[in-house]
C-alpha cells in the first residue's frame, strides 16, 4: 500500500492499534450501520412508537431542525420518525421476498445442477427467456392483478428475482460434480441422497446465503419502486417508497427534505450490505478478490 506512507502517523498508529486495515475499517463501519438499521427497525415500536395515520397540520413542511431531524412533510409528519418505520417495512418485505426467491431459485438451480444434461439445458433456456422479461413490468403486472398489498408486493418481488440464484446454484453444483471428493464419496458407497446432503449442500449453502443477502437490497428497491409508483403498500403506511412518492409533491413546493431521508436510508443500507457481501465473497473465494473496499 503506497498511500499508507502519506497518511499522518497518528492515524497509522490508531489503525495498527485497532488492527483496522483499509478493507476492514469499511467492513466494520458497514457492519455497525447494518446492526443499527436492524436493531432500530426491530425495536422501533417499543422505543419510539408511531401512529401511522396521525397528522399534525400545524407543523407542515418544517425544515430539518433539532426537534425534527429530517424535517416534516406536507401533513406535518416527522420524516425521520417515519423513515425508521419505512426501513422496518422495507427490510421485512425485502427479507421475506429474498427468501421466497432463494427457495424458488435454489430448487430450480438444484434440479438443473444435480441432474445436468438435457434437463439442465432446457431449464436454463427457460431461465434465460424469463430473464428477458423486464422484471419491473412483470412485478407491476402481478401487483395490479392481486391488488396492491403486502402479500402482493412480496409475491411480485419473489417471483421476479429467483433467476440469478438459480444460475448461481446450478453452476456451483455443476463444478462440484466433477471434483474428486464427490467421486471418492460415490466409490465409497454413498448414495445419491447422502452425496447431496453431506457433500454438495455444505458447499452450496454459503453461496446461497450470500446470494440471498445480496438480493435483499434488490428486493428493497423493487418494493420501494412499486410503492413509489403508487402500486405498493397502502399510501398511509410509512414505507420508504411511499415517503419518496409523497416527497415528490413537497419537492415542487420547496420542501426538498421530505424525500431526502427515506432515499438516504436506502442508499446507506444498500451500500453497507454491498460492502459486507464483497468481504464475505472474498472469504468464500480467495482466488477472486472482489474490488469493493470503500
Amino acid at each position: 500500500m503506497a498511500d499508507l506512507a502519506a497518511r499522518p502517523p497518528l492515524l497509522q498508529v490508531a489503525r495498527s492499534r485497532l488492527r483496522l486495515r483499509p478493507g476492514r475499517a469499511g467492513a466494520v463501519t458497514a457492519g455497525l450501520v447494518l446492526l443499527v438499521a436492524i436493531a432500530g427497525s426491530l425495536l422501533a415500536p417499543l422505543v419510539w412508537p408511531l401512529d401511522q395515520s396521525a397528522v399534525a397540520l400545524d407543523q407542515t413542511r418544517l425544515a430539518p431542525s433539532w426537534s425534527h431531524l429530517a424535517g416534516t412533510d406536507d401533513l406535518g409528519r416527522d420524516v425521520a420518525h417515519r423513515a425508521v418505520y419505512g426501513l422496518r417495512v422495507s427490510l421485512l418485505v425485502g427479507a421475506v421476498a429474498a427468501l421466497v426467491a432463494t427457495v424458488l431459485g435454489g430448487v430450480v438451480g438444484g434440479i438443473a445442477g444435480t441432474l445436468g444434461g438435457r434437463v439442465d439445458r432446457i431449464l436454463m433456456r427457460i431461465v434465460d427467456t424469463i430473464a428477458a422479461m423486464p422484471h419491473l413490468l412483470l412485478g407491476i403486472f402481478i401487483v395490479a392483478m392481486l391488488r396492491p398489498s403486502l402479500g402482493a408486493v412480496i409475491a411480485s418481488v419473489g417471483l421476479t428475482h429467483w433467476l440469478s440464484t438459480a444460475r448461481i446454484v446450478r453452476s456451483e453444483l455443476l463444478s462440484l460434480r466433477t471434483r474428486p471428493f464427490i467421486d471418492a464419496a460415490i466409490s465409497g458407497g454413498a448414495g445419491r441422497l447422502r452425496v447431496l446432503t453431506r457433500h454438495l449442500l455444505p458447499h452450496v449453502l454459503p453461496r446461497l446465503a450470500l446470494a440471498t443477502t445480496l438480493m435483499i437490497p434488490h428486493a428493497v428497491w423493487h418494493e420501494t419502486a412499486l410503492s413509489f409508483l403508487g402500486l405498493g403498500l397502502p399510501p398511509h403506511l410509512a414505507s420508504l417508497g411511499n415517503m419518496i412518492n409523497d416527497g415528490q409533491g413537497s419537492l415542487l413546493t420547496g420542501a426538498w427534505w421530505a424525500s431526502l431521508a427515506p432515499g438516504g436510508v436506502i442508499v446507506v443500507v444498500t451500500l453497507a450490505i454491498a460492502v459486507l457481501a464483497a468481504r464475505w465473497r472474498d472469504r468464500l473465494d480467495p482466488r477472486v478478490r472482489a474490488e469493493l473496499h470503500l
Partner: protein
Amino acid sequence: MTRSGRLAGAGAVVRRRLLVAVPVLAATSVGMFALGAASPVDPAKQYAGAAAFTASEENLAQLRANWGVDDPLPVQYLRWISNLVQGDLGWSTSRHEPVASVLAARAGWTLLLIGVSLALVLVASLLLGALAAYRRGGLFDRALRAAAYAVQSMPVFWLGLAAIAVFALALGWLPAGGLTDVTATSTSWPDVAHHLILPVAVLAVSQAPWFVLFVRDAVAESMRDDHVLAARARGLPGRTVLFGHALRTALLPFLTLVGTHLPELVGGAVLVETVFSLPGLGAVTVAAALGSDFPLLAAITLVTTAVVLAANLATDLAYAAADPRVRLDG
C-alpha cells in the same frame, strides 16, 4: 468455417431459440391470464368507473356478455391469445381505446428515451472504464469505482428527484418535467430535446455503474494479454495501446452483455418517465396497473419481452459474425 456454413449455423440458432422462447412465452401468457382471471376486480365495473355505482345490473351484464368474461376460462384464453397472435392486442379498459393505438402513440417516446440513454451510457462507460483500467488502483480508478458503487445503491426515482431539486428548482437550468413547455401549442424538436436532457441523463447515470465496472474489469484483464504487452514493448503510445488494443479485445463480449441488460433499462425508463411526467409507456403502464387493465398490461409485458429476446438474439448473431472464434450453441 465458410461464410455460408456460418449463416446456416445462424439459422439453426434462430430455430432453437424460437423452440424455447415460444413455449416459454406461451406458458407465461397462460400464467398471466390465470393471474388476471384470479384477480378480484370486476372488469365491467372497472370499465364503467364511477358510473358503475349508478349503472343498472342489466347494463353491466351486457358489458360482460359483450366481452365474454363469463365464458369458461379456456375459451377466453384461446380467444385472447389467438387475437394476440393475429395482431389484435385487444381493448384497453383503462384508456378506452385499442391497445395497439396506445402502444403506437406511446412507444416512440420510451424508445427514444432508452435509445439515447443507452448510446450515452455505452460511450461514457467505454471511455471511463478504459481510463480507469489503464492505471488500475490509481486515484481515478478508485474514485470512479467508489462513485459507481454509490450511484448503484441509489434508486433511480430518487436520483431523478434529486436531479429535479438541483438542476430544475435550485439552479433553474432545465425544466422539471413534461415533454414541451406548458405554453407551447405544438411539439418542436428543440423544445423536446431541452426537456429530455434531464431524464436521459438520470437514466444514463443510474444505469452506468454496471457498464462502467464491467468495462473496467474487462479492459484491466486484457491489459495483461500478450498482444497488449507486445504493443507496449513495441513502444506504441499509451492511448493507442489502451483504445486500439486492450479495449478492442474487451469490446465484443461487452456488446453481447448489453442485450441482457435491456430489461433493467426498461424498468428504469418506466420509473424515470413517472418522475418526469413523460408521455411514454411508463405512465400508461402505471395507470393501467391502477385500473387493473389486463389487456394493456399483458400486451406491454409480452411485447417488451419479445423485443428484448429479439435484441438478445441479434447481438449474439452479430457477435458470432464479428468474431470467428465464437461458436453459438444455443
